[in-house]
């Protein structure tokens, strides 16, 4: 199965074509230049397909990181994938942005602490146990304060903890020397990881794909009286 994956959940946008049977990345491209994803994402997809001499008809299915992340960014990538998959009548898989980040650490033996900056001392986070080619989820995706996350991390003493994601530097600055940080080349969301994290049992028709926004805790969301 050949999958085209997109990610524009945060500041960078990326596109990848992955052959799932062979476990090979056939094509990959990424931009991180602060131009709106609505202008970069589809030209990027078109250009990497062209460079790889592939067409959308060679694609069997689509994958996209559908949250958490920037509300605007998620809507751009999710609607782009929805549109292509709907037109071609191909299945889609929405992948947790945080789960995809854990796949950046495949091959390591560590706790992946996936963190995306949610501002104001909070991060979107989930923890995963990465062991070689396996990724096991330890927590649900959530919005959590750095202080609260610190409490949880202090309980995890058996394995190295590695921060990955666009909030990795923020978290690493906060916790200092107790944890390590993924190097720049594997730190950020990328569409190839999204394709690897896409579970074939979770493919659905295009119309069922939705962004999964994660809200801040209820206390911060009091309604107008």
């Amino acid at each position, binding site marked *: 199965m050949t999958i085209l994956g997109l990610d524009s959940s945060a500041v960078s946008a990326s596109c990848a074509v992955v052959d799932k049977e062979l476990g090979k990345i056939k094509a990959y491209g990424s931009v991180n230049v602060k131009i709106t994803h609505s202008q970069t994402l589809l030209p990027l997809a078109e250009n990497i397909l062209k460079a790889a001499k592939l067409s959308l008809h060679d694609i069997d299915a689509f994958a996209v990181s559908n949250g958490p992340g920037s*509300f605007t960014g998620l809507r751009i990538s999710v609607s782009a994938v929805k549109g292509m998959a709907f037109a071609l009548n191909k299945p889609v898989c929405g992948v947790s942005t945080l789960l995809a980040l854990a796949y950046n650490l495949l091959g390591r033996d560590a706790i992946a602490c996936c963190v995306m900056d949610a*501002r*104001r001392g909070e991060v979107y986070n989930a923890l995963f146990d990465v062991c070689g080619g396996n990724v096991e989820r330890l927590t649900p995706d959530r919005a959590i304060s750095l202080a609260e996350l610190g409490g949880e991390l202090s309980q995890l003493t058996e394995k190295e903890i590695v921060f990955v994601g666009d909030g990795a530097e923020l978290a690493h600055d906060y916790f200092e020397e107790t944890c390590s940080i993924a190097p720049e080349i594997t730190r950020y969301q990328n569409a190839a990881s999204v394709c690897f994290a896409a579970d074939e049992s979770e493919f659905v028709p295009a119309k069922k794909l939705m962004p999964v*926004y994660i809200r801040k805790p209820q206390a911060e*969301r009091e309604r*107008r009286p």
Partner: protein
Amino acid sequence: MLSNSVEETVKAGRELGGKLKNDDAVLLYGEMGAGKTHFVKGMALGLGVTATITSPTFALVNEYKGLYHFDLFRINSLDDLYAIGFCDYIGKGVLAVEWSENIPNLERELDDYYKVKIAKKGENAREITIDYTRT
């Protein structure tokens, strides 16, 4: 300060615009017709934004180079605010946010902000108060 005309309200906005850093947030409060949009027109002048500023009531946000002009008149909760992608704009440029009173906890989303309150004191007279808060 007291403004006695649209021109003076624009001038007050221009003065604030001239001293803003490039990612400051300005929350505007005031009833319909108070002059919030005129104040933002002044801010744009002070920021060197040359485009014509119009009310974003229907678009929710009008984007200019370096200035994002929001109108939260139709936004009633933090959930709605998140849904329109407001937080994606924070730190990307100057934010001017009309009808900030619609979101009681709006300030919590910001590290620092100016509050501009424009109160009607007569047909043309307006009392404008500007406070800066760092949380």
